[in-house]
């Protein structure tokens, strides 16, 4: 709030207006008065008050009407209602509809001064909160931009030159040099991916996900996610079996982010699988919901870790000591929730974990639509991700 706080008093009794003016004189406020609701509201536009004091019982437009219209015009204006001593119940009513406080008549000058001081304070706190909220949003955006550009650009430049070096040395490098280069390249790739995941973690835009949703068969993101996880799985000789009913159930979704949510679950499953392990990905329909489950038979998760699993930056080293960004599951959860779904986990230490994504199923509308009842899993492992 800049300069003097502006107070508007609306009351049909001239004596109340006069005494309010008298009480606040010399308190450092800018004051305006109106003798009825209509005049008061008209004054709001040009006077732009910080605090409006309004009598509830007035001929013509009542105090309640004034409150309602004020809220519509500018909900940040702090309002105080004046009520007759016997009508505290209407004061409660007024506070329910947004008034900040009430002042029963008759009141002492000290009571009035105090309530105005608090209302003005409330007004500046409201502004402060708004400014802080704006700042937080900006910081979030800026952080995403900084991470993306300032961190990713140099990493990309380094990796690009490593690619070139690898090419140029292909014919002449010793096996030892080649291996060293491969290590550098792999770690750099991990780093770049981590930066990408962090950036997505802070900048994931739920509104954008919602606006991009179209009918999509769950088969598509499942296949894409499996394909992307296979590279990593093959390195650990982990097999991924996929079982999705035909025709595959459909959801309203954004294919890209749904795939990302699944990739995160799958890479975790690989990470916590032992070499040569097996992972199952299944989809089924239950009560108008599609349940996509990713099950591994790896090391499992201790019960006391379960509650923290979906928190940002929570991370546990994988079976081979692999580290993650600690954002994968948090990102997955935000994506799934933006789809109106939920993500849950069950785990037995030493035996493995099952992560389930539940999404509202898209109803039957013509060919290619999903059947309503749950059906036995049609495809089995052999059908694979193709």
């Amino acid at each position, binding site marked *: 709030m800049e300069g003097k706080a502006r107070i508007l008093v609306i009351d049909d009794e001239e004596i109340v207006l006069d005494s309010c003016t008298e009480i606040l004189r010399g308190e450092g406020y800018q004051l305006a008065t109106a003798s009825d609701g209509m005049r008061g509201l008209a004054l709001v536009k040009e006077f732009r008050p910080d605090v409006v004091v309004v009598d509830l019982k007035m001929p013509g437009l009542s105090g309640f009407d004034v409150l309602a219209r004020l809220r519509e015009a500018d909900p940040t204006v702090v309002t105080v209602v004046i009520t007759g001593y016997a009508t505290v119940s209407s004061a409660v009513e007024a506070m329910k509809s947004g008034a900040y406080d009430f002042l029963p008549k008759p009141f002492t000058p000290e009571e009035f001064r105090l309530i105005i001081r608090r209302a003005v304070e409330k007004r500046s706190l409201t502004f402060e909160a708004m400014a802080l909220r704006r700042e937080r949003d900006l910081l979030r955006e800026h952080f995403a931009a900084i991470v993306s550009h300032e961190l990713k*650009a*140099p990493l990309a430049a380094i990796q*690009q030159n490593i690619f*070139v070096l690898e*090419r140029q040395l292909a014919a002449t490098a010793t096996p030892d040099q080649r291996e060293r280069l491969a290590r550098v390249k792999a770690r750099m790739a991990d780093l*770049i991916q981590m930066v990408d995941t962090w950036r997505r973690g802070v900048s994931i835009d739920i509104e954008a996900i919602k606006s991009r949703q179209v009918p999509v068969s769950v088969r598509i993101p499942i296949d894409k996610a499996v394909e992307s996880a296979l590279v990593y799985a093959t390195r650990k000789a982990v097999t991924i079996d996929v079982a999705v009913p035909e025709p595959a159930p459909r959801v309203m979704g954004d294919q*890209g982010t749904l795939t990302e949510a699944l990739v995160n679950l799958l890479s975790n499953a690989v990470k916590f699988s032992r070499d040569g392990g097996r992972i199952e990905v299944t989809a089924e329909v239950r009560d108008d919901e599609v349940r996509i489950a990713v099950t591994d038979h790896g090391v499992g998760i201790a019960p006391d870790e379960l509650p923290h699993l979906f928190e940002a930056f929570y991370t546990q080293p994988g079976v081979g000591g692999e580290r993650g960004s600690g954002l994968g599951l948090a990102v997955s959860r935000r994506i799934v929730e933006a789809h109106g779904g939920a993500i849950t986990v069950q785990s037995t230490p030493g035996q493995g974990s099952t992560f389930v994504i539940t999404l509202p199923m898209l109803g039957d509308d013509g060919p290619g639509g999903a059947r309503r009842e749950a059906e036995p899993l049609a495809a089995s492992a052999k059908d694979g991700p193709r």
Partner: protein
Amino acid sequence: MSERKRLMIIDDDPDFVAGIRAILDGAGYETEVAYNPKDGFAALKARPHDLLLLDIMMGRGAEGVMMARKLRKDPALKDLPILIITGIREQIAFMFPGQAVHPNFVPLNELIEKPVEPDLLLERVKALLQAAETRGQPVS
């Protein structure tokens, strides 16, 4: 390809440019570089090119996008194929709200993310050049 194709690179990161330039030079392309959109546009106007490799985040923001828009409006350059090489794929999306992640700036364009594997880079460049040729428009 009968003669050496001339590629223009506009990117403000000299180290990244060195990385892709070596790959393109090694594959027999003639490359020219501008480190800001202004010089790049001047160079494109000065002599014919077969393909433009364009960065998005340059200078104070998405100057690459402005560059592409400018090219689209230029009768002499609107058919130049563009390979957009960007650090962040979604940056394109938020610059064109409501459009597909890969908006068509110009009739022929393609988008890849930094860093780019040499084989992928060469494959995309070749494909774009071929597509430009089959369109029957002498781009130069």
